[in-house]
């Protein structure tokens, strides 16, 4: 008797296993396209997330994991990543065939070279399954879509840059209203600068010489662009008159109002601001927290910092902000593609993104109001997120970034080694060469 029960259990479980194997193979992996699956009993998916989430919003990740585990029966293993040398790690992982994660996070300027390389599963047929996919932030959604219009990466979150300034220093210098045009900004900075004429280390507006995100914002604000494609060929456009006009604005900030940052990038600007000799910076909304951080910054500045979107040439016309952010993708070679896509669905749905909106700009315009209610800085960054620019969306762009083409050109302008015209001429040549490279 006992024996037959045992064999019945064995047979039953074997049937169940076979059935589940059938259903999972039937559901996912149809011709490169991958469909979401909730069938994950006994499986574990691996998720690569950048440590920003670990430090900033671990609760969002945890709730998504537990909802996913409840829905699928699968377990989630989150492996925290670092941005530095991340693409090398992705390259070597995707080149191999083992230990491939089921979900990866990528910066939105990194996705296009991986999409072109066929690294990600095609999620086009499941786009409707992802909540808010109709209202995804444009810059993020574009970065996750192939030139042929296929969805290969899902928007995760974004950040936009605003002016972070010392209200106390500005008020003391006689500036009490926020500038609405660049000319007003310069007039205000003149006053702030004059009030600190005795401090040779003082920057009325600290603008590092390698801050290409800032410089390109002025290029786009003036109606210019970095590069343009005509009949299949890219041309660098920084020497165009409009781009030059924009760069002249950046040059004014970097040379007339900024001290000491000519050969630096924006990485340590929060530390520098917390030292007290800086009137304003251009940074992500969360950098307010970095400037006032008790360990690395100066908490006393908390009540003195405020933000506003970078004004443009005319009132009400902001200088567009670079829309930085992250996407999530399912690697083509992932062992559990359907489950990976399901995890992304849960991690980017309204519930998760509403929680995330406390810390970063959510992936959809429909939740921007939640984000803006959180803090004063969020109103400015939310406003700035409505008018953004993005890098040329082509697979070779990543090499312009890794080759430091823009940073080197800008540094030579900031140090006075080159004129704007000479620096951009050489940058345009390099950009065209890199973007048009075929072999």
């Amino acid at each position, binding site marked *: 008797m006992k024996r037959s029960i045992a064999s019945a259990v064995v047979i039953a479980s074997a049937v169940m296993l076979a059935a589940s194997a059938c259903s999972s193979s039937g559901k996912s992996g149809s011709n490169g396209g991958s469909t979401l699956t909730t069938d994950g009993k006994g499986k574990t998916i691996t998720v690569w997330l950048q440590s920003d989430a670990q430090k900033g919003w671990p609760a969002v990740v945890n709730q998504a994991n537990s909802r996913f585990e409840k829905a699928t029966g699968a377990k989630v293993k989150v492996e925290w990543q670092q941005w*530095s*040398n991340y*693409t*090398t790690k992705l*390259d070597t992982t*995707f*080149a*191999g*065939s083992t230990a491939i994660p089921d979900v990866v996070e990528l910066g939105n300027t990194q996705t296009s*070279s*991986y999409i*072109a*390389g*066929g*690294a990600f599963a095609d999620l086009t047929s499941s786009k409707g399954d992802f909540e808010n996919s109709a209202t995804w932030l444009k810059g993020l959604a574009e970065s996750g879509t192939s030139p042929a219009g296929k969805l290969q990466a899902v928007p995760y979150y974004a950040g936009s840059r605003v002016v972070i300034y010392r209200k106390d220093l500005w008020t003391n210098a006689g500036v009490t209203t926020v500038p609405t045009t660049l000319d007003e900004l310069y007039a205000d900075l003149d006053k702030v600068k004059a009030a600190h004429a005795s401090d*040779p*280390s003082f920057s009325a507006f600290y603008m590092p010489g*390698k801050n290409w995100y800032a410089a390109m914002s002025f290029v786009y604000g003036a109606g210019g662009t970095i590069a343009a494609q005509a009949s299949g060929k890219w041309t660098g456009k920084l020497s165009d008159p409009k781009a030059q006009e924009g760069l002249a604005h950046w040059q004014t900030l970097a040379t007339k109002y900024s*001290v*000491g940052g*000519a*050969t*630096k*990038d924006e*990485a340590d600007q929060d530390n*520098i601001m917390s*030292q007290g*000799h800086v009137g304003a910076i251009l940074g992500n909304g969360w950098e307010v927290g970095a400037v006032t951080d008790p360990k690395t910054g100066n908490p006393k500045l908390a009540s003195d910092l405020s933000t506003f979107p970078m004004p443009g040439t005319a009132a009400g016309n902001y200088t567009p902000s670079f829309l930085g952010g992250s996407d999530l993708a399912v690697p*083509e*070679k992932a062992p559990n593609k359907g489950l990976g896509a399901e995890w992304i669905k849960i991690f980017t749905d309204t519930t998760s993104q509403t929680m995330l909106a406390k810390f970063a700009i959510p992936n959809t315009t429909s939740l921007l109001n939640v984000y803006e209610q959180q803090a004063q800085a969020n109103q400015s960054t939310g406003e700035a997120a409505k008018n953004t620019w993005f890098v040329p969306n082509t*697979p*070779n762009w*990543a*090499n312009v970034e*890794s*080759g*430091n083409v823009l*940073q*080197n050109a800008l*540094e030579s302008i900031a*140090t006075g*080694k080159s004129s704007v015209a000479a620096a951009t001429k050489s940058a345009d040549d390099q950009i065209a060469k890199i973007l048009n*490279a*075929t*072999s």
Partner: protein
Amino acid sequence: MTTAQRRARRPLRRRASGGMRAGGLPYLLILPVVLVLVTIAGWPLIKIILLSLQKQESGKYALFHSNGTTPFTGLTNYVNTLTDSTFWTIAFRTLVFTAVNVLLSLVIGMALAQLLNRASKWARVLLTATLLFVWAVPSTVSTQIFYWLFSNQYGAVNYVLDKLPGVHMREHDWFADPHQGLAVVTLVVVWGALPLLAISLHAGISQIPSEVIEAARVDGASAWQVFRNVILPFLRPLIAILATLSVIWDFGVFNQIWFMRNGHPEPGYQTLGIYMYSNGVGSSHYNVGSAIGVLMMLGLLAVIVVYIRQLLAIGDEK
């Protein structure tokens, strides 16, 4: 050496070589090391040579879909690298940088060794301990410290220099001009190289029989003449080895430049190591990067040959 002495030595040698014939034990003992070397050095070496002979695709499709292999293209990557004027500019800069660094570290190392030799015991212990501490500091850390020292706004160097009468160094940016910037890098590299050089040379000097030096002094040689005609000839084999090692290290300097420029070295800071890394790894051009790596290796091989010959020559003398 007399004939008798020579004869006395022979059996010893024969016994030593007889041991080699005694069986496979020596080979067995060396096997683990050989295995480790083959895995961690040999295999990557073969792989890098193979990569350098394969086609450099601009996209990553081949990388992800054919196990990273692309068709063999012979020496195309090498020809492209060697016909690029940027490569030669960087190669020349690397040579000058290496020469300056090796020369400075050897000269200062020798000066410190002399100091160690003449200093009283407690001073010598103190100096040696300090040198060992310097040695223990990883290059990433020392680079960051020097970067802060030379920071244009809050750096100690500018602050101190500015205090000197007639010097205006406030806000001076050491990294705006790559020559000045590389001078700061040289400072870190030499600083890090000194402990080994000074201690080795000190050990070398203390091996010189004191009667030889005394004899030279009695004959009226000046301090410089003693150094030039007695100490230097004695130390020549040691100096040759230290110089070769320094060339190998300084030729491949990476961390000090990379971290001094926060991971984004400007064109004027590019040496071959940096060039290889930013081209190969930074831009995912693994084939071209491998070709540059192999070229660097070939360049160094010439130096290593000198090094090994020197080692063999020393072995013969003994």
